[in-house]
């Protein structure tokens, strides 16, 4: 006789469905990315995903786990997709392989697989390649709006396998807006001078700001479907805006505006898709607020005073480290435990 236990109700959701929702929510932003910067990003996503699924299957075989339930949970797809969106397009295949390898093996399965990893696997992979391959990781392409052309699918594939044309390459690359800010501020230029650069749009970088808007829309979809809760994105964006506004009010010509911070780099993607990874985030209601706020704060600190132009990945990993501590100190009040007792 099968072992039966309450509750005898059909579950309303599944982890597979949650992960699938994340994948769906990533589609509009990814398409916008391809629209502004060419299909290179799609090549990244497809190659990284295929690699991640293959690695997941290989590790599962080594660990003697059933393939179907684990491969079918879409978590490898989400990790690969987020990693592919974080790195520069037209990255060489070995860079993607290194990152995905670290993400899937060191970041996920060495800890016991989905549910047991303390760090966001995609960010582990990203940080490894960021530190190991600084040249490749700082070679970004300019949006089509500025250069008038993007690389097509065939060219993208050529670059992926290191067969691209170097002359064409140099013509198309440029600094990211965050990078530009950083170098220009280093040269004592004022904000108004810096913003003369064609890289900047209405509130963020050209192209980037609109991709950020699409991440936001994907994030709203995740909120509406109950896939994520509001606490982390709101706290993360709120704390970044708060500290950015503070410094901007003090020195409006020497610091970037709060909206620029919000719409640049990995902030929007991070707030809705990366920091909200349930496995590695704080889980208590108050803890999620603390966790989100900590990431927002760290992003600003790393961007302003750290040695990297963007800080979302490092901020997320640092906050991951603090998660058990945050959860411990933010336990909710249990029914019957009155706040005024213990006198």
């Amino acid at each position, binding site marked *: 006789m099968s072992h039966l236990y309450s*509750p005898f109700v059909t579950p309303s959701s599944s982890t597979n469905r949650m992960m699938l929702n994340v994948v769906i929510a990533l589609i509009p932003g990814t398409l916008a990315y391809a629209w502004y910067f060419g299909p290179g990003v799609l090549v990244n996503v497809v190659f990284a995903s295929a690699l991640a699924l293959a690695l997941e299957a290989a590790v599962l075989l080594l660990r003697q786990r059933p393939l179907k339930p684990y491969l079918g949970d879409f978590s490898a797809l989400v990790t690969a997709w987020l990693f592919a969106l974080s790195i520069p397009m037209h990255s060489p295949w070995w860079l993607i392989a290194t990152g995905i390898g670290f993400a899937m093996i060191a970041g996920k399965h060495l800890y016991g697989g989905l549910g047991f990893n303390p760090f966001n696997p995609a960010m582990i992979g990203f940080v490894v390649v960021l530190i190991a391959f600084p040249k490749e990781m700082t070679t970004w392409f300019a949006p089509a709006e500025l250069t008038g052309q993007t690389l097509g699918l065939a060219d993208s594939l050529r670059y992926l396998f290191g067969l691209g044309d170097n002359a064409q390459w140099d013509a198309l690359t440029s600094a990211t807006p965050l990078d530009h800010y950083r170098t220009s501020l280093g040269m004592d230029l004022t904000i108004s001078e810096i913003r003369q650069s064609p890289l900047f749009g209405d509130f963020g970088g050209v192209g980037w700001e609109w991709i950020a808007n699409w991440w936001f829309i994907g994030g709203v979809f995740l909120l509406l479907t109950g896939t994520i809760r509001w606490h982390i994105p709101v706290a993360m964006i709120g704390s970044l805006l708060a500290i950015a506004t503070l410094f901007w009010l003090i020195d409006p010509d020497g610091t970037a505006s709060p909206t620029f911070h919000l719409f640049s780099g990995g902030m929007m993607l991070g707030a809705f898709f990366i920091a909200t990874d349930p496995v590695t985030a704080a889980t208590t209601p108050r803890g999620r607020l603390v966790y989100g706020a900590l990431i927002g704060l760290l992003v600003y600190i790393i961007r302003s005073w750290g040695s990297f132009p963007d800080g979302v990945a490092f901020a997320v990993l640092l906050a991951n480290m603090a998660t058990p501590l945050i959860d411990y100190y933010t336990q909710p009040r249990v*029914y019957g435990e009155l706040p005024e007792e213990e006198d």
Partner: protein
Amino acid sequence: MPDGSRSTLPFHLHRFHGGLHLEDHKQESATRPLQTASLPGQLILRLKQHIGEPNEPRVAVGDRVLRGQKIADTPERVAAPLHAPSSGTVVAIEDRPVAHPSGKSDRCIVIEPDGLDEAIAFEPPDLERCSREDLLRLIREAGIVGLGGAVFPTAAKAETAAAHPIQTLIINGAECEPWITCDDLLMRSRPEAVIAGIRHLQRILEPAQTLIGIEDNKPEAIAAMQQALDEAALTDTRLVPIPTVYPSGGEKQLIKILTGHEVKSRHLAFEIGLLCQNVGTCAAISDALDRGQPLTHRIVTVTGTGVREPGNWVVPLGTPFEHLVELAGGFSVERPEPIMGGPMMGFEVRLDAGLVKAGNCLLILNRDHRPEEHECVRCGRCTDVCPAQLLPQQLYWYGRARQFDKAEEYHLFDCIECGCCAAVCPSHLPLVQLYRYAKSEIREQQRKSWKSDRARKRHEFREARIARQKAEEEERRRKKREALAKKKSTPAARPETELDPVQAALERVKARKAAQQVAPKNTDNLTPAQRRQIEEAEARRRKLKQGPDS
């Protein structure tokens, strides 16, 4: 307030944390009128149908019993006797499968009804003359227990509570579990009995106010109860429709909704001046006090996707569940899954087990394929819905890792096992099952450590006793030695004649021996011939004694 029963003042409701809006599935059974169940071939009555001390049979195999006759009882206070639900013959007193999550067997009295349904003469007590103690005794004698599912003996609960000032008496008509409609049908068909029972409880407890909480998905029950309440004109009694959110019928949750108070962990409601009783219990109290009838029947909902004609029946206790399935038109699915209670907190039962006082519902579902379990992804949905405001996910991790002390630290024992966490878990983990397991493991550990503690204490006590006796003995000897040493060191102070006692004893023995040897008895008045004979004999003896070498 002169007329408390129909106050138009808005009532301020409170909210409890979390909970779920579930498909309530009440229509299936609530749309049919209350029916009376036919008698089954056998009534299988578990001896213990309550929380507390076990009952002993008061009948023997072969006895004829009448409806209402007491068939099992115990002198203990926290218990409730059992009465025969119909007339017939006791055919067995033996272990039978009972309605229990473990599917275990327990002692049951089996009655074969004779179909006459003859009853003992029920004598309603003279309530005017009854003291509070009399009322409590009558409630106990009627075998009444909490019919909301907890089956705690009502008299014991009320008696303990009556020792405290009760501010608010709460009547629980929430019936928040999906599918179950037995309280709904009771309130619709016998609202006056519920109100009469409330009146008796008010007499015992003297609460300042009484609140009747009914979920607002039962408009007919609310209307019927309000009408009965108006007719009875009870003072300071108010019917409060509450929002339909599972588990609003949990005692702690209903207290929160109606009063805003929270009962502290491991404390009871009466400690903060509150007492909860279920509507079914109130009706049973009225039956006992107004009609003199003990608890022998209860209303049972037989429903689910797996029976043809769901409905509610007044069923004699002990009726096998398979008989209830027949009443509801039989199974309508291939693989029926019989559950006693609701889908959230019920458990699978064997169909040959008999109905108990706790059995509010027999739910028949189709044995569906259970969705696959995944690893916990820490999404925290369980935390959002937990009405006890716990962190179910942390409890899961600690329970799984057998770190029971940590699980206790995270308030495992405040879990009411409502099943909300498991119902929303996207990884489909058997959370409640794990908490039950962890609780039982902890209780077992506590029992063991209590036992070993006791054994250790006993051992230590014994060791201490032996050590003490040794020490005492030692002390006695030491004193004696000291005394002797004193004697020896001061011989001048004592007369020479006084000898060492050992030596004196030896002297005495010597003297006695010598006397024995020297002085034969009865030799004073002897003839010369006799004397001679004796001397000869003595000479022979001496010769023998001295042996050949002398």
